[in-house]
């Protein structure tokens, strides 16, 4: 067999469904089409958004050009230290219990995390449905077994805590639970503090391993510390855990791929040797895939985290974005209420972050796209940030119309 015959049998891989919707949108000639699919924040005028704090950091970096040399294998130290503090808080960040690795953003962090856990013998995963579409292929790529429970209950339009607890109680020891720490993608439905506390208790008791993905820190409450509550709680509880951090969304650094993997090693203080081993393992794995993380995004992020005036501005940027998202949610609810749209729409303000999981069914989604030129994911996920003065009325009217039609 030669490579010729082999490649000839190679099937064409399926595209991410979101890519299909985006290309349908692109070829729709309607002037009033609205695109609510994509997962990035948009400015009020619908344009791409550059954080003002990032714009400043770029100028500062250019004026204080560090060049493009190879960096450290574990990442740029100011970046990983700052990133750690953003998630764990000042005090815990320097307690000597956390190994950190700069990664290719949040995706790369999750990928390295699953490889790392595989090496530790942890291969049995649980994820709540529905989930970010990349989890399943990512975990399978690492050779893990993936089990599902229900994160979201479509009837109550809230988290399905019962299903979560059942899974936690049934999972064999050493199973890994992949949780999103805040602003759940795609549902926007997060566990309450009380629920997180219960989850932590069960996990500790049953020796389960928490794997946190935190890609939207700050977009739930507007306060990054508050949004890291769950992770900090697990940390305080004495659980070993890991956290996969992305600055794609909360700094708008998407394409610069700034992210970090943190592994909490509770015994790190008594046994610094164990922490060193974990750190060494992370670096070794990363060296075989990338050698180094990309410098530019990490330097911008480090500036936002470590330079006091930029940090303050970044905090404000995040708070403002969150406020705008929350106002848009309120506005949608008001408009639907004013039109007396059939059904209960409270979940639009209960859910957090960039996404609203509308609850529209497949037929409704297909109709709103075909008839009204409103594009969202097949599961009815809407990017709130893509709504603005110029399209929110049309969006709400379209929604109202489709809901009435399909009642």
């Amino acid at each position, binding site marked *: 067999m030669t*490579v*010729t015959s082999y490649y000839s049998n190679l099937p064409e891989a399926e595209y991410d469904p979101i890519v299909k919707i985006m290309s349908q949108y692109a070829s729709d000639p309607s002037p009033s089409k609205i695109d609510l699919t994509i997962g990035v924040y948009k400015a009020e005028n619908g344009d791409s958004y550059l954080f003002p704090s990032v714009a400043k950091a770029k100028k500062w970096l250019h004026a204080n*050009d560090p060049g493009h040399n*190879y960096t450290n294998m574990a990442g740029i130290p100011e970046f990983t230290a700052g990133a750690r503090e953003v998630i764990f808080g000042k005090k815990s960040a320097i307690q000597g219990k956390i190994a950190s690795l700069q990664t290719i953003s949040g995706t790369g962090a999750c990928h390295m995390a699953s490889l790392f856990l595989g090496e530790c013998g*942890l*291969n049995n995963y649980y994820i709540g449905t529905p989930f970010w579409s*990349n989890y399943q292929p990512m975990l399978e790529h690492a050779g893990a077994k993936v089990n599902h429970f229900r994160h979201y209950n479509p009837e109550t339009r809230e988290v399905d805590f019962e299903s979560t607890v059942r899974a936690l109680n049934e999972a064999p020891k050493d199973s890994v639970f992949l949780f999103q720490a805040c602003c759940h993608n795609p549902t926007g439905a997060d566990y309450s503090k009380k629920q997180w506390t219960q989850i932590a208790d069960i996990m500790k008791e049953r020796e389960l391993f928490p794997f946190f993905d935190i890609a939207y820190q700050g977009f739930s409450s507007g306060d990054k510390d508050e949004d890291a509550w769950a992770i900090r709680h697990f940390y305080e509880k004495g659980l070993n855990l890991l956290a996969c951090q992305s600055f794609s969304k909360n700094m708008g650094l998407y394409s610069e791929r700034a992210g970090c993997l943190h592994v909490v090693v509770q015994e790190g203080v008594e046994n610094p040797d*164990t922490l060193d081993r974990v750190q060494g393992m992370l670096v070794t794995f990363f060296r*075989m895939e990338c050698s180094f993380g990309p410098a530019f995004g990490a330097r911008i992020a480090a500036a936002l985290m470590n330079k006091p005036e930029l940090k303050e501005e970044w905090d404000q940027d995040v708070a403002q974005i969150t406020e705008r998202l929350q106002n848009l949610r309120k506005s949608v609810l008001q408009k639907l209420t004013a039109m007396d749209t059939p059904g209960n729409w409270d979940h639009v303000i209960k859910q957090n972050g960039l996404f609203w999981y509308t609850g529209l069914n497949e037929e409704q989604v297909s109709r709103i796209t075909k008839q009204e030129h409103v594009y969202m994911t097949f599961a009815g996920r809407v990017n709130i940030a893509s709504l603005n003065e110029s399209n929110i009325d049309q969006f709400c009217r379209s929604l109202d119309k489709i809901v009435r039609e399909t009642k």
Partner: protein
Amino acid sequence: MLSRTVQKNLFKRSNAVSSVRFISAFSEIPLAPPDKILGIAEAYNKDSNPQKINLGVGAYRDDTGRPIIFPSVKKAEEKLLTAETEKEYTGIIGNKNFQNIIKNFIFNNSGKDVNGEKLIKDGRIVSSQTISGTGSLRVIADFLNRFYNTKHILVPKPTWANHIAVFNDAGITSEFYSYYDTSVNGLDFENLKSSLQNAQEGSIVLLHACCHNPTGMDLTAEQWDEVLAIVQEKSFYPLVDMAYQGFASGDPYKDISLIRRLNELVVAGNIPSYALCQSFAKNMGLYGERTGSISIVTESQEASTRIESQLKKLIRPMYSSPPIHGSKIVEQIFADESLFQSWLSDLNSVVGRLNSIRTKFYEKLDKTNYNWEHLNKQRGMFVYTGLTKEQVIELREKYSVYATEDGRFSISGINESNVDYLADAVNKVIAK
């Protein structure tokens, strides 16, 4: 220290210790072997001898020992600073413009390679932006592991330290073919050929495009012809690693003769497919920005479509999409003819310094009892001295000269102000 088996297990994820208890899981992790180059840097930093020399760096340094920013790169960044207004995601395999730059610059040799031009026109090249050279090697290895029928690769002995680890990590096992004969400090061409001839048919074969790392010793045009004849005869799958394009001749166009030969063989139907891993780390000085690419030359446009879709499927769960700061610099440079010309001249002057200091070093070496001729044949960032491990250790301990124990000197660390001291130290060590 680690036992060999533990170290081996470290690289074999599938054999992970499955019975480790959760609470103690972390403490059972073996300590990773320290990185050799970093170890050298650390020891160097601690040394208080003012005349100490670090020959371990894998990046360019100017005559004052400092890293440089290519002036053309700095200009491109100035343009970017005003031109770039957002940072939204690029595609999983990067954007079309970057891919086209790679195709046109490398495969078409900017209009000078008719075969490459035909391959591009026929839609037979799939290119993807990657996490620099390392990332491109990792992705292609994983890709071949999934879709190619043999799972092992022939690599030159010696080769870049990370090659074997990267391939192994992706499930591809490495096997050496002869390359260099340390007893004569030269290419071991007869054994090179015979070891390839005796290797398993259909193997993947790793070829360094130019400036072989670590030896700096490349094949001549005639030697490439002979090797490529074996590649065809044995139906090997060529995987080309090109991390130092431009460093052999000072001109990136001249350093890609291997690509031109392969293109010709593909167009003639003698080789169905091959892959290229490429990096801008060295030739644009973009090291830390992680800018590189992978290209697969396919059998047909239709195959390209399928291969591209599978590449995306492979990369998406690994890191979603590549970082753009470095690739935007590349795009800026290629978009502007005068900027492009200044990049070529920046690169040329970097290589010029390396070559002139190499010559200077050669001149100062004592040749009465030692043949240093190989230095003049080697190309790129390194001098592969042929010094023994003991001699390297003596250099370090007696003269504060830090190099890897295989006797590889990074020329970057040598400059006008230390070349005499260095040559003197080497002369003393070999005189013993």
